[in-house]
């Protein structure tokens, strides 16, 4: 078979993207935290999820792009705290797919040149999404930006900055906000079967010489996609919540592609000096303020949300404690696999059978995934100690200095006659040991059925992708602030702001601070 669908240049680029992901995966796995649990069989479900990702991502991404291009969804991602940010898109989309591929290579079930068109497509989708989402900073990943996660345009940052309420350790708002973040973090780990993928941090953004802002997203909290939240989470009023957090005397020097941060000195709650609260989803026109009318209203809201989340947390824990190992495996694997499912929501093509089931091609591996084999296979995949990872003894890989590469490159020999295959095929049927999903989705447009959710998503055309505004970027704003068109653009973002409504595009950071001081 001659290789006519890809050029040498495309192969070069694909291999470059694979290598970049390999370098970062090694660094993240070695230097960031280890995930373990006595409740969930974590390594086992992770291995199962990688199989699901390998076999299904290519066909599901093609389905999504049949409605909406990756770069358009990337534009939408800048305007919502939903699961198409890090760690979903910055790392997991290529990472899970490539980890699955690598394990299958080690089993001898595939070769580096198998499903090569799928592989090139997944990496290209990822690149286009990332470049679009990151267009304000010009990098493809947080890693390339020196582990920094700045995505938002000035007009959104100004609203976050202006409307944030000051707080200090010991006051009622501070305690309420801190209590909420503790409870929702814990609930997030439980929803996501011990993983942190319901939580995401981005930033930092400079608010003043001694203050930075971190934007914290807490996602999939209510009755929505996960069957295990049906009923137990029905009283959680928002599916996604975003907390804006001003921090004093603390520099966030690292925000990685897993959405976690490091700071100097260590961030502790006493350094929290400002908070705000928002919600969003694929049906909202960006971030919607939650209880941002007054500090009293916000304080009360944090307390109420904390109570509801603790109640849901305890109900969910009791449900999970009664599960079988296979049910825990399914929930964990589905959580991982579906980490990019909100791409399908934005495009309006979400289906339960696509995202909440274990593909039968992955399912056949389940008997392998006892705790010990899964642990050893997983650690080997993450640090590069399997057979496929080994390279010539002369090699000194990035970070490890060892002759090992985490993800195999595509051999260029396919361009001169070595045989290869194109695709692992379409989406095969799947199944799950979990109860069927109830057709009830809590969105910013109310609790609706999935068909309605998809219909509304397909109709949704937020200003950020309206041809009138889509390419009015930060560079354009720099040279056009104060013009009627720039003011129109800023007015859209300011329409629900307490302090900035109708202020337009001419404000700078100090002006926003003055407005805050005078409020």
């Amino acid at each position, binding site marked *: 078979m001659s290789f006519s669908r890809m050029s040498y240049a495309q192969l070069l680029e694909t291999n470059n993207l694979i290598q970049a992901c390999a370098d970062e995966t090694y660094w993240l796995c070695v230097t960031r*935290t280890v995930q373990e649990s006595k409740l969930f069989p974590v390594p086992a479900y992770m291995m199962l999820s990688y199989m699901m990702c390998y076999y299904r991502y290519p066909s599901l991404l093609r389905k999504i792009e049949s409605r909406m291009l990756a770069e358009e969804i990337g534009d939408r991602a800048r305007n919502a705290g939903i699961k198409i940010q890090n760690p979903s898109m910055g790392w997991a989309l290529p990472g899970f797919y490539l980890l699955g591929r690598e394990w299958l290579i080690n089993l001898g079930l595939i070769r580096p040149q198998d499903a090569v068109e799928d592989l090139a497509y997944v990496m290209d989708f990822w690149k286009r999404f990332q470049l679009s989402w990151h267009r304000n900073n010009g990098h493809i990943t947080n890693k390339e930006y020196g582990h920094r996660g700045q995505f938002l345009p000035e007009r959104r940052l100004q609203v976050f900055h202006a409307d944030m309420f000051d707080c200090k350790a010991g006051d009622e708002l501070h305690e309420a906000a801190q209590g909420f973040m503790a409870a929702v*973090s814990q609930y997030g780990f439980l929803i996501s079967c011990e993983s942190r993928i319901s939580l995401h941090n981005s930033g930092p953004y400079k608010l003043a010489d001694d203050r930075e802002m971190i934007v914290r997203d807490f996602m999939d909290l209510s009755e929505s996609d996960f069957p295990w939240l049906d009923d137990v989470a029905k009283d959680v009023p928002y599916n996604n919540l975003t907390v804006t957090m001003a921090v004093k005397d603390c520099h966030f020097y690292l925000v990685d592609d897993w959405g976690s941060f490091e700071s100097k000195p260590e961030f502790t709650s006493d350094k929290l000096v400002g908070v705000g609260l928002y919600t969003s989803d694929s049906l909202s026109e960006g971030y919607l303020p939650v209880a941002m009318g007054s500090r009293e209203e916000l304080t009360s809201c944090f307390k109420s949300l904390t109570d509801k989340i603790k109640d849901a947390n305890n109900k969910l824990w009791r449900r999970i404690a009664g599960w079988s190992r296979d049910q825990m495996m399914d929930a964990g694997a589905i959580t991982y696999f579906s980490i990019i499912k909100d791409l399908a929501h934005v495009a309006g093509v979400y289906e339960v059978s696509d995202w909440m089931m274990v593909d039968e091609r992955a399912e056949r591996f389940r008997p392998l995934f006892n705790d010990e084999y899964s642990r050893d296979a997983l650690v080997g995949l993450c640090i590069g100690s399997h057979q496929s990872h080994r390279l010539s003894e002369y090699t000194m890989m990035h970070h490890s200095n060892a002759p090992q590469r985490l993800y195999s490159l595509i051999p260029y020999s396919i361009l001169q006659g070595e045989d290869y295959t194109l695709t692992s095929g379409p989406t095969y049927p799947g199944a799950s040991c979990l109860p069927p999903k109830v057709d009830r989705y809590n969105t910013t447009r109310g609790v609706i059925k999935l068909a309605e959710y998809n219909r509304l998503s397909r109709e949704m055309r937020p200003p950020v992708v309206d041809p009138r505004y889509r390419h009015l970027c930060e560079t354009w704003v720099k040279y056009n602030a104060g013009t009627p068109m720039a003011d129109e653009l800023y007015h859209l973002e300011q329409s629900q702001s307490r302090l900035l409504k109708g202020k337009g595009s001419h404000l700078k950071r100090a002006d926003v601070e003055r407005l805050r001081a005078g409020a």
Partner: protein
Amino acid sequence: MAKLYIDSDKYGDQGASAVVDAYQGAIKDLIRRRLDEVGGDWASFVFDKSYELIAAKDFAAVEKKLLATGHRFDWSAMISVRERPDAYKSAPGVGDDLKNFSFEHAEAVIAPKDAEGREQRGVGDNVVKHAKNLVGIARYIRSSDRVLEFLTQGVPADMIAVIDDSGGTLTAPILEKFKGVICAGGTVRSHLGILTREYGIPCLMNAKISGIKEGDRVEIESTAPAKTTEAYQTGVEMTAKVWRLSK
């Protein structure tokens, strides 16, 4: 027999572990046999015939063969050993065993009683520096049954949870009630470390302890400096002490 692409690997000559090697070896044998059965045509095998020919029952047989040698798996989740006690190593410190159970880590730093009558029984990585050391009663938590027991009967006000699970889900419904935590795993950045910091609960992670039994009065040095990222990355020792106190 058919030769797989990976059989010609110039550099890869060792696996990640003995168990992984045993599995991968058996699976490769299986694939070679099945590939032979279809005449060795890789293109029709890899994403088509192999879906039927490499099946769950084949992988179950690989495990059965390993277990027949007497091997028993390490467990990480309690549900695994509970559902298949014949396939996993036993799980001490659960149920009735708790009365006589204690973590016995070889790396535990111990010392005789000091002037205040405190006997050092180990060390750990302090998550957050607090103004005072913490004194409480050690209670082991190693299963969801134990969590359910505390959830039903209430968490004692002076309880220092002794755990070897650095995750944030096992103790999710009761964590907020702990007076302190000694965790024999993870790092200060593990989920349990993150949550205790959010809740303001004194916590030592990666603890290496010995001789602390259920119901012992213990003190943890929560006034020690919090272990930093740099300390982890450079391997610098930065620990807080754990003492057993007179009852």
